[in-house]
């Protein structure tokens, strides 16, 4: 899930990346210098080549220094004007059509329709915008060179860098327009599609006779709408709420004539999780770094045994009442979310789940809360709201307040989880339990998701412009498309590049195939073997370089967060912005060098 990857600390990350960036730019500089000199030397001889190279470096420096925002803006305006017409309208109409027919395929009966709708609009927008960016950027510059309109541009005091940047800016503006339009449309679409309410008649509600409920509480079923109904619980005053169905619930209020349900709540959320540090206590009650291993399971999770002294303890820091306050004021509870895995040594009642318990403890005073039990269904996210005020176990006359008494003065609290059934085990990793602080605004989070798409779009535009400085339009499009596709699967490419464990690289594998050798027996030593190995490692190195040059689209995409209802952390967004900016800088620089060293009049 989203939270499994920790977001590294910002400053060390920044320093690390900045140092990396400097090295990359330096390597690029030296590489292109060497390459440029080689080309110049082949054309003009070694001595003249040196002069030519020097001249190019000097003029490039002057170009970059003299790059004028005024001319960039003029060229950006031109690119904007060039593509503002039909293409943008076509793209927008296409999106409208997609949304119109989406209703046929998106099933509101799914267990989490919010997730479904969000992932649909986000991926549709992403695809459409990247397509538009691809088309705009691949055809523009080659078109200008082919129609020779570029002659009237480069014979003005226009630097080649301005041509690259102007296009980048112009097409980014177009893409931004489309993205803004589709964004607003998508938002309205998602909210409208999910919006619904139910009805309940006073006669549908009946008093609850069971123990554990306060007097006057009533319960009943709503009518059937959007392919589900809710169980309503109201208190003596007639106000209350429904249960959670399809990822949402409704507020219930008493009106003169009966009851009224509000809009769906909780579907479009931007949860802000606060993660903690996990430690274990083993079955004898001693501190341990890890729980026990239950064998051939994923080692990511550690396990605690049921009905023993074993516990899993999370320590949370920097808490305060303010972080949990809601729009209605100070918090009435402490929301804890958990998704645990279960390992059973006997079957039990599968559908009933395994009982676990949760306890809060003040790490300074060691004061503990009551023990709350819950049933774990495996890998389902449980959200447990622990009421703020409760009676002290030890002293029934005393009340405990979570925020005042259980959170220590420096803002720490311990959450202790036990498995209450003997012979069953709970598995957990650090990210599996978090406190849910005050939600962020969903609209803002939605916007953040679009920012991620926007970054991808800008990168596609930049790649398109870069390739188009050298290649013809169709070739540019293919090259850009290839980069996008490989960028999408860059994790997989990296896996390829890190080399297979058995059987060697492609050449070695081929030899094994032809000589019918098995995967593990070593090749006979000698010339042949070392040649094969050199070839293979060169290939792997090339793969690694290519993978490095490709944009890592999957990292820029924050849709996972939005779709799963988590707030995109600001630090992560900033990281994406910065690394995208660095990538863009390098791409633009390469595009500039290409354009600088080519004759535009061919």
């Amino acid at each position, binding site marked *: 899930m989203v939270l499994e990857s920790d977001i590294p600390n910002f400053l060390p990350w920044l320093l690390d990346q900045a140092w990396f960036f400097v090295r990359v730019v330096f390597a690029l500089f030296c590489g292109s210098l060497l390459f440029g000199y080689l080309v110049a030397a082949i054309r003009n001889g070694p001595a003249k080549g040196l002069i030519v190279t020097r001249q190019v470096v000097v003029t490039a420096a002057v170009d970059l220094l*003299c790059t004028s925002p005024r001319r960039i803006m003029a060229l950006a305006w031109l690119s904007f*004007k060039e593509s503002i017409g039909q293409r943008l309208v076509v793209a927008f109409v296409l999106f409208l059509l997609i949304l119109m027919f989406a209703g046929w395929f998106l099933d509101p009966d799914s267990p989490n329709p919010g997730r479904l709708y969000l992932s649909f609009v986000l991926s549709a927008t992403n695809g459409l915008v990247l397509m538009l960016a691809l088309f705009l950027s691949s055809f523009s510059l080659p078109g200008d060179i082919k129609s020779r*309109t*570029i*002659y*009237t541009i480069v*014979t*003005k005091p226009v630097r080649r860098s301005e041509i690259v940047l102007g296009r980048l800016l112009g097409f980014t503006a177009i893409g931004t327009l489309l993205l803004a339009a589709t964004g607003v449309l998508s938002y309205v679409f998602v909210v409208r599609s999910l919006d619904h309410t139910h009805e309940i008649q006073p006669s549908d509600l009946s008093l609850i006779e069971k123990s554990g409920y306060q007097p006057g509480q009533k319960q009943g079923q709503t009518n059937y709408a959007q392919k589900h109904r809710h169980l309503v619980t109201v208190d003596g005053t007639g106000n209350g709420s429904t249960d959670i169905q399809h990822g949402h619930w409704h507020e219930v209020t008493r009106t003169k004539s009966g009851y009224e349900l509000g809009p769906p709540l909780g579907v479009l959320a931007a949860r802000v999780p606060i993660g903690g540090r996990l430690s274990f206590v083993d079955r004898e009650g001693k501190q341990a770094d890890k729980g026990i291993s239950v064998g051939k399971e994923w080692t990511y999770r550690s396990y605690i045994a049921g009905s023993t002294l074993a516990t899993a303890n999370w320590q949370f820091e920097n808490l305060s009442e303010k972080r949990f306050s809601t729009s209605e004021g100070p918090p009435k509870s402490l929301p804890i979310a958990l998704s645990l895995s279960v390992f059973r040594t006997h079957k039990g009642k599968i559908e009933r789940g395994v009982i676990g318990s949760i306890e809060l403890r003040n790490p300074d005073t060691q004061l503990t809360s009551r023990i709350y039990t819950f049933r774990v269904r495996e890998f389902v996210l449980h959200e447990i709201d622990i009421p703020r005020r409760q009676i002290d176990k030890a002293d029934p006359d005393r009340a405990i307040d979570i925020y005042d008494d259980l959170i220590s003065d420096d803002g720490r609290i311990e959450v202790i989880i036990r498995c209450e059934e003997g012979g069953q085990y709970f598995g957990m990793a650090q990210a599996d339990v978090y406190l849910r602080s005050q939600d962020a605004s969903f609209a803002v989070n939605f916007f953040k998701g679009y920012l991620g798409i926007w970054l991808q779009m800008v990168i596609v535009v930049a790649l398109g412009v870069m390739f188009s400085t050298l290649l013809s339009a169709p070739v540019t499009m293919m090259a850009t498309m290839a980069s996008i596709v490989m960028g999408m699967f860059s994790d997989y490419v990296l896996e390829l590049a890190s080399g297979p464990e058995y059987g060697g690289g492609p050449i070695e594998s081929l030899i094994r195939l032809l000589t019918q050798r098995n995967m593990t027996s070593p090749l006979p030593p000698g010339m042949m073997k070392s040649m094969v190995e050199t070839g293979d490692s060169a290939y792997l190195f090339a793969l690694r370089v290519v993978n490095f040059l490709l944009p890592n689209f999957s990292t820029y995409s924050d849709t996972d967060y939005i779709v799963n209802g988590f707030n995109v952390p600001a630090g992560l967004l900033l990281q994406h912005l910065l690394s995208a900016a660095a990538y863009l800088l390098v791409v633009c620089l390469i595009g500039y060098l290409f354009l600088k060293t080519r*004759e535009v*009049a061919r």
Partner: protein
Amino acid sequence: MASKSRSKRKHSAATKPANPKPAAEPIAAVAAEKTAESEVVIETRNLSKVYRDFWGRQKVQALKSLDLEVRKGEIFGLLGPNGSGKTTTIKLLLGLLFPTSGEALVFGTDASDVAKNERIGYLPEESYLYKFLNAEETLDFYGRLFKMSGVERRRRTAELIDKVGLRWARRRPLKEYSKGMTRRIGLAQALINDPDLILLDEPTTGLDPIGIREMKDMLVALRDQGKTLVMCSHLLADVQDVCDRIAILHQGELKELGRVDTLLQLSGETELRIANLSDEAQQEIKAVIERDGAKLISSKNPTTTLEDLFLEIVRDSEARPGRRAKGKST
């Protein structure tokens, strides 16, 4: 006959001051002469261009060791048959192409220097403009590429649209323009920055007779403002009308270079127009002239037309290929 007159002409070029200039010489030409030594605007040294294909194989040698000098305040004409390298020369001067060898200097700096473009205007062979813009937007856009205030840009845009006679069509997108109209807006675009050096690739093609007249007047007027113009054209009458000096290229080689008036003089022949001459005297015409008894109205070297000269050079060069005019300049 042709080759005879040619040799005579050459002779005259060597002994230049044989004939005094007619008094009616245009003032501007004199002005051009005066500044002749002062400022060199364009200089090419040994400029050569080989077009290569994708694999670096030689396709065409478009220009061979061109040496040229264009000075401030003159109209310089580049002549030559199709494919002789005129456009190539202009592109090299603009830095649109890189020379294979040799140098092209404009305003004393290398042609690939971008800063020089502040002072240059270029009218391409065909007007390569953005078809989705209208005349005003086009000029405004190109104006933005120069250091020019908004007010000045608008003033200059309006002024140039009037000057090229497109006021009535200034709001129409260029894709609706006729060839001549496109040519006109192309010229306006070349003049947006009030350039000191203007390079025009066949400026009169596509224009109607009035347009051609206006274009030529405009070129001369620009020259009279002290601007330098380089143009290439096939329309020899136009070249003869406006150019101060010409170079004739053939298959990438410079064949002829010099002042138009000098090149067209046939110094071995004399043309007399005499009035009130009796029949007897007519037979004794040489004696009469020797004795200075008759009234001599005019005596000058007859001129050939540029067309004759052009055809002769091209034919001659085809018969005996090789460089001829190297280093010769006026």
